[in-house]
């Protein structure tokens, strides 16, 4: 019998994910996701509520399937996107981690995040903040991300927000 995930284990996964993005180790970052991962950042419907149904309402980002994230990484690192050259310097701070539900092979985890981004191109610093909601699954003994929902609270986008600054 394996034990449900602990908060320390969940933090370890979330902090590691943040570090991989911050260090631009995107190939390793992608390995944290299941092939059928749902990666979702809703848009805001009005002042108080985000969109809830990605099939009928707009999202800022919605992908089902890791291959879509691979596309995003490919674009980000291709050298062919002027918006991604040079890549901004980012640091993610992930806090308030809570294990909301957990059994042996699955867990729901929430967290808060801030991402500080220094856009070297424009000599401009931005801060993005919000909440994460994760579905984690244990596969072959390792915890993977089966769903990541990002609620971006400051959603007036200063020119660009890519997958590395949320």
């Amino acid at each position, binding site marked *: 019998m394996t034990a449900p995930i602990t908060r320390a284990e969940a933090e370890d996964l979330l902090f590691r994910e943040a570090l991989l993005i911050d260090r631009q180790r995107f190939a390793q970052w992608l390995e944290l996701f299941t092939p*059928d991962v749902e990666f979702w*950042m*809703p*848009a*805001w*419907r*009005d*002042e108080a509520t985000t*969109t809830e149904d*990605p*099939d*009928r*309402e*707009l*999202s*800022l*980002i*919605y*992908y*089902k*399937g890791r*291959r*879509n994230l691979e*596309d*995003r990484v*490919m*674009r980000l690192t*291709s050298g*062919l*996107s*002027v*918006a*991604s050259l040079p890549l901004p310097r980012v640091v993610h701070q992930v806090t308030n981690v809570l294990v909301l539900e957990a059994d042996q092979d699955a867990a729901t985890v929430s967290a808060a995040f801030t991402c500080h981004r220094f856009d070297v*191109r*424009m000599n401009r610093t931005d801060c993005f903040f919000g909440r994460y909601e994760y579905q984690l699954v244990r596969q072959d003994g390792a915890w993977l991300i089966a769903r990541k929902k990002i609620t971006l609270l400051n*959603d*007036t*986008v*200063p*020119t*660009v*927000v*890519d997958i590395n600054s*949320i």
Partner: protein
Amino acid sequence: MDVTRFVDDRPADGVFRVNRAIFTDQTVFDREIERIFEGGWVFLGIESQAENPHDFFTTTMGRVPVMVQRDGEGTLRGFVNSCPHKGARLAQTRAGNARLHVCPYHSWSFDSAGRSKAVKWQKAGCYSAAFEQDDHGLAALPRFEAYRGFLFGSMAADVMPLADYLGEAAKLLDLVADQSADGLELVPGQVTFTYEANWKLQLENCSDAYHFTSAHPSYIRVLERRQQELSADVVASVWENSDYWKEEAQGVAGGSYSFANGHVLNWGIFGVTPAIPLYESAGALAERHGEGRRDWMFNMRNLTIFPNLQVAENASSQLRVIHPLAPGLTEMRTWCIAPKGESAAARRQRIRQYEDFFNPTGMATPDDTVSYENCQIGYGGMAQPWLQGYARGMTATVEGGNRFSDLLGMNPARSVLADSQLCDETLFHSYYRAWAQRMAGGDAA
């Protein structure tokens, strides 16, 4: 203002140039706000944003906060969203429903037709007779008119009727409105972004066929990858199912139309393909509107209604409102615009295509807006003040329309028929001719 300092328009010499200062000069910007955004027709929103009795939405014309409100009888009106008492903004949200607006500062109240309901403690206020005789209702926009569900307002009263202002370009709004017998709607979820560059860069980019393969190669590479590895996980792309923009494409691939008052269309032949969500209605639309108009609904169409409305139907369908904040700062409010009543599958496809291409969190728009910022930085260099970006198509542009506009019974002022590499720039002339007309003359009202 001597507009020839900013726009060098000499058709007989084959010259059309725009001075870099038009994008950076604070006096130019202030005058644009006064003459263009607060001095003539400006797009406000679409009717479905205030669908039901007492619904309202808010927006901005230049510096003017605006509220568009439907009253209990169903009449839509446009007001300045500001209390006549001390000027406080009245409606605080982007949209809502209110029979009564109560100012949060001193509780003056207004009904959904903008009439004053109460001045708090009026009897005890020891007001003069002059005050009692004043109208304490909301200031109506001097002009407010609708065309096919597209709502426009003007802070100047002495403007031509909206139908005249839109002119022949109205037929391109028809192509949007006619995609469903039920009309149009905005998909829930508004996306707002800013960029640190002039508003006219957005005006131009929407009409700029020349940048696509240069600014978006990373997006095109993603599309190619998806095409090779089609699976249920990826969304069919309109671009990969069309050849008009590819450099090896042969023959007429599209072109441009220019209209009076600064409206323009950049278009390309897409064909009636299942990659377009409208495909499910292809037969019905041909029956209702004829094949010619139906095919036009499937064409790539980037439409600008000067100065602030763009309807881009290419990778998906986007409604954009341009809001200038400073010479080097612009806010864009964007929505996915869609025909009402389309199937759940078509709507889903439209939304997915939209997010990837149009969102500032997607894979194409940031490469545009960052390029605008690079332009804005580059405008600091005045060694060559006259830009050379208005010259492609100079020997291809002709007066009037062509066989494609004839299909719509549309008579543009000028047109260009293009292969994939012509990438007309003369349609920008229409923007700057309208601009010069509005900006010229003295300062006297």
